[in-house]
């Protein structure tokens, strides 16, 4: 071990400074309470509307167009909300802290797997509905977990 002359007070001060610095890069404030539900809801709504419009016959083109527009609005709102709430200038955030990497992978893979499983039976509609059904709760749970962890830190 390299020789050094750090006493316990120095060590505690350095540890505290390091914890504060890492926390500052993560997030200054916890996510707002409404955000996990809003983000998950918009994600689910957008893909559910896309799935439903695929089920409609071509003769109902006006309704199809309206659903496509509503789906686009919901998904764009989801992205804009994420950008507004989560983005921090000059910092690319790390993966959600406090979430096990295997759970994180499962949370992102589950919607794709469910969509893929429904696709052979319902086509694109099944894929989108699967994404909506699994993606919305996955988003909500991950963001809520992230918020709880930030609040506990």
């Amino acid at each position, binding site marked *: *071990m*390299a020789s*050094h002359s*750090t*006493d*316990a007070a120095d*060590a*505690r001060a*350095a*540890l505290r*400074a*390091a*914890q*504060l*610095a*890492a*926390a*500052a*890069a*993560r997030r200054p404030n916890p996510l707002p309470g409404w955000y996990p539900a809003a983000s998950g809801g918009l994600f689910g709504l957008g893909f559910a509307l896309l799935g439903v419009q695929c089920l409609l016959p071509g003769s109902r083109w006006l309704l199809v167009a309206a659903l496509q527009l509503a789906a686009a609005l919901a998904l764009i709102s989801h992205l804009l909300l994420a950008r507004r709430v989560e983005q*921090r*200038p*000059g*910092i*690319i*955030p*790390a993966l959600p802290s406090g979430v096990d990497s295997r759970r994180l992978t499962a949370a992102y893979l589950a919607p794709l797997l469910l969509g893929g499983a429904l696709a052979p039976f319902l086509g694109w509609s099944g894929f989108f509905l699967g994404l909506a059904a699994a993606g919305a709760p996955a988003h909500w749970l991950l963001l809520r977990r992230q918020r709880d962890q930030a609040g506990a830190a």
Partner: protein
Amino acid sequence: MTTDRPAPVFNEVIHQPTRLAVVAFLSGCTDAEFRAVREHCGVSESALSKVVSTLEAASYVKVRRGFVGKRPRTWLRLTPQGRAALTDHLAVLQRIASEASALGAALEQQEQEQEHAEQG
């Protein structure tokens, strides 16, 4: 159980306060812009440049230069070696603090025992 990983060592490169702040800040994110790190650490541009050069020479930080539009930007990222070195260094600091607390508690207990012995 034995592990192949060597025991954590006190890291003189990281321990300097500004370097520790920079490395710890970078450990909390994937990448950070030079300016964001400078604002957090409250140091001048030249001071941070020196710190980053030292950390880059030790392979603890990776520097990436690019442009956003026409404006130059410098991005900093903690390398896996840097992350491991920080983890080890914090473990050593934690051990120093814990040992001091344990020693303090042992001394206090010894004093109390001596007091009891003198009273008895």
